[in-house]
């Protein structure tokens, strides 16, 4: 889904609140929330994709105004309710107030997961174009590279496709690749000498044709 979690390249955010010596947990409740997510994910047998998608479905305003471990708490409670471990009214009664959960899954049940892809279609050095599409369910294809052309720099193993595993018990496996994008391919206001690498599943990619649309002013800088 085109959710608030897909933050790469968004503008308007301020400085990074950076401190070199930050502890693992700043508050006791953060450690508890983290452990409870592990408990719930184990009890309902949630895949990594289903867990991540339960955070991505948070209401955007709530997502941006809450910290990481509140995301995990919301995910744990949402998965527990969706899998019938407990109810929202129980949560709210115990908490003595509202207990915001993530929104519903927008994707209809993944129909046919399709066959596994065991052999990489691309090799190091191949030019690939990321599919320009907007699936309503979970995906690990960031918006900022969709439609863009890059070069495969590494072929990794074969892994379960998150888009499938997030939405049911079916699984499809595909190779993943590290794809290098020149910043000039991604941003009109790109910074000098920058390359961004994104790890992408096989079905996110097509072989790039010889001609490529891009930002005209970037021509000649991209290599």
């Amino acid at each position, binding site marked *: 889904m085109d959710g608030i979690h897909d933050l790469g390249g968004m503008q308007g955010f301020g400085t990074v609140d950076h401190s070199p010596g930050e502890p693992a947990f700043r508050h006791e409740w953060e450690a508890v929330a983290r452990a*409870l997510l592990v408990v719930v994910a184990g009890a309902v047998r949630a895949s990594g994709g289903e867990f991540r998608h339960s955070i991505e479905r948070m209401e955007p305003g709530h997502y941006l105004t809450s910290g990481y471990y509140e995301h995990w708490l919301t995910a744990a409670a949402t998965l*527990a309710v969706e899998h019938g471990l407990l109810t929202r009214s129980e949560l709210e009664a115990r908490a003595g107030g509202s207990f915001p959960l993530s929104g519903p899954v927008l994707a209809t049940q993944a129909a046919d997961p399709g066959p596994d892809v065991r052999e990489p279609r691309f090799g190091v050095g191949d030019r690939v174009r990321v599919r320009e599409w907007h699936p309503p369910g979970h995906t690990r294809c960031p918006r900022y590279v969709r439609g863009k052309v890059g070069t495969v720099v590494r072929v990794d193993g074969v892994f379960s496709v998150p888009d499938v595993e997030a939405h049911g018990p079916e699984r499809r496996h595909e190779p993943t690749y590290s794809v290098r994008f020149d910043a000039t391919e991604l941003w009109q206001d790109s910074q000098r000498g920058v390359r961004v690498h*994104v790890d*992408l599943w096989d079905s996110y990619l097509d072989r790039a044709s010889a001609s490529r649309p891009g930002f005209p002013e970037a021509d000649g800088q991209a290599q």
Partner: protein
Amino acid sequence: MSEQGHHPAVPSPIERRVAALQVLLAERGLVPDGFIEEVTRRYESEIGPMNGARVVARAWADPEYRMRLLADGTAAVAELGFSGPEGDHIVVVENTPAVHNVIVCTLCSCYPWPLLGLPPAWYKDPPYRARMVREPRSLLAEMGCSLSDEIEIRVWDSSAEVRYLVLPERPPRSEDMAEAELAALVTRDSMIGVARL
């Protein structure tokens, strides 16, 4: 944990929500005794940047280890006993005088737990995730890591199963140091790539 042993009279709304979920799950027998404390203890004391620092120091001290680390990060860190969740597919990217590497996860918070522990809050917050792929040069400078325009910046967005570790350059005047002394020079920030040593 700053609040350990301290019990505020009125719990905050988030504390009440965490407690509500904890009680309801415990009532269903889903929270084993001591589980929360054990998980917390591991990530507060056993798993953290000191692990990655040992890997980096070994790579500086032992050229053959460095070659193995860059060729197969997962196997090389396992030689030092590091493996586990979020550590099954480790790729190590090496800084040189001409290349600076930096790690981000724009979609969530992916991070090499066995080597660096749990990620700091700023790594997971929107400003870092939004800006590092678009304006890394200015963001790095803002964070205290100013790089000459001649240095290429390679950003690695951990969007699939690989987790990255930056191998920083060995600092000047460290030639005579033993491995343990070298490890003490290595910071978390330098292994994420938001600092140079």
